[in-house]
């Protein structure tokens, strides 16, 4: 049985009487400890799938199941599934110190030993413990994203949803953050569902990938198929060719 099962998912936004069908009939399966990628251009609905899992987007059809159970957004869900957002400049509260940001989930769930846990979380993501009482504006983009990752891991979830976790960062910092994520996944046996518009990032991180376009699933590829350029559809091929030079490196 797969850990994440999404069947025929549709998401429809209505704004001022106009309907936007962001996701139409997408199905996917993610196994335990697998790293699954969603790739596509802007507006292809890949981020919306993550938001739908978190209850941040209106599901209009289909079903999402985590570990065989129908999705319920309660505290138990928070301890199983956490998310890292795209923009580290927008995902940390500007008036909270890192200490506050990281200990908040512990306070919500009544978990003790906040001091040691915050220190260990900073250490795990490679930040010095002297940063503990800094504010987000005193950090660089890469450091902020490390904090966001540390926050997502505070509740020790088994599933981490990653919404373009590196697209707002410089190339050199991107690699560091991706390596950090890969290391944490190996250490903690996490399951990743990762969104990116960059096939090179997906290739580096994911076992399987679903190519999306205009809210629909186009093609699912394994890493071997991706590396061997054995895709069936023209759209997946054009996407592959756009980033082929970096894939080989």
């Amino acid at each position: 049985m797969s850990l994440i099962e999404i069947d025929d998912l549709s998401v429809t936004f209505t704004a001022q009487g106009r309907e936007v069908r962001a996701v139409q009939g997408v199905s996917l399966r993610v196994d335990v400890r697998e790293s699954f990628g969603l790739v596509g251009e802007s507006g292809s609905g890949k981020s919306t799938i993550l938001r739908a899992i978190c209850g941040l987007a209106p599901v209009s059809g289909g079903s999402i199941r985590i570990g065989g159970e129908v999705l319920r957004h309660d505290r138990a869900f928070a301890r199983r599934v956490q998310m890292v957002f795209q923009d580290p400049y927008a995902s940390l509260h500007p008036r909270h110190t890192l200490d506050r940001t990281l200990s908040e989930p512990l306070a919500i769930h009544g978990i003790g030993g906040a001091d040691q846990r915050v220190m260990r979380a900073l250490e795990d993501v490679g930040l010095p413990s002297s940063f503990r009482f800094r504010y987000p504006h005193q950090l660089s983009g890469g450091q902020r994203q490390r904090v966001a990752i540390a926050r997502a891991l505070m509740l020790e979830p088994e599933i981490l949803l990653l919404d373009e976790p590196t697209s707002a960062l410089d190339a050199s910092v991107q690699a560091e953050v991706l390596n950090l994520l890969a290391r944490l996944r190996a250490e903690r046996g996490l399951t990743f569902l990762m969104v990116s518009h960059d096939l090179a990032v997906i290739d580096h991180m994911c076992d399987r990938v679903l190519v999306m376009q205009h809210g629909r699933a186009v093609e699912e590829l394994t890493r071997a198929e991706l590396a061997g350029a054995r895709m069936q559809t023209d759209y997946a091929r054009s996407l592959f060719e756009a980033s082929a030079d970096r894939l080989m490196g």
Partner: protein
Amino acid sequence: MTTLTQWLRDPNPTSRRQAKLGQLWLGWLRLKRNPLAMAGLVIIGLLLVIAAFAPVLATHDPIAQNLQNRLQPPLTPGHWLGTDDFGRDIWSRIVYGSRITLYIIALVAVTAPLIGLMVGTVAGYFGGWVDAVLMRLTDIFLAFPRLILALALVAVLGPGIENAVLAIALTAWPPYARVARAETLTVRNSDYIAAVRLQGAGAGRIIWGHIVPMCLPSVIIRVTLDMAGVILIAAGLGFLGLGAQPPLSEWGLMISAGRKYLFEQWWVATMPGLAIFIVSLGFNLLGDGLRDVLDPRSAAK
């Protein structure tokens, strides 16, 4: 001194308190660059000092009458601001009156923004019918001129300082609710709110711990800018005999008493009027300066 500033400017604070004080220190440095705001701060500081040391600074008993000495002009020996129609020393009355003014300001500044913040953030966060009900209620309060509504409330509750404060607080909260709701709408869909909701936080925790801190700067600015208005309304209620009652030396009440002599003995009404003017100016200047310090949008330059 240098060790203290070093401790405050430490980029790696070692405790929550140090981090918070460090931020306050940076705000203070920004405020210090603004001479007008500093002038406002000095005026309010003076008001606090005068109120605290009123018995020392006052030359006479503020309610002791001396009818042989009534309506003395300013610079009379012993009464440098003159005396009023009962022969009471105006300077002493203004000094003691500062306590009443501060008392009213403090009570209003604590209650009205709190009500406004709660109504505004709850309306903005939940949206839908909660928003509709709360904001229409706010509109109803806003539809009446503030002084008229305060007058009506005091007329119902009965004259007195406490009732005046209550009336002012009840008429002052709607603008804060508006400001807080507008700020809430800009932050409620941000990623950091989504993140904490994803961690299982309840509405109370999100509103109080995450949304209110974002609304506070604009509300604080509003409060300092509104303080002048609060002083004027308190004085107005006193003037109409609905606020502080004689023989208390409330400034508005003093102006009201001096009205009868305005053309011949101008100082009786003018001196407390000047006091109101200076204190209102002080709050306005400080409010303008605080806007530059607290508002992240204007601090960007």
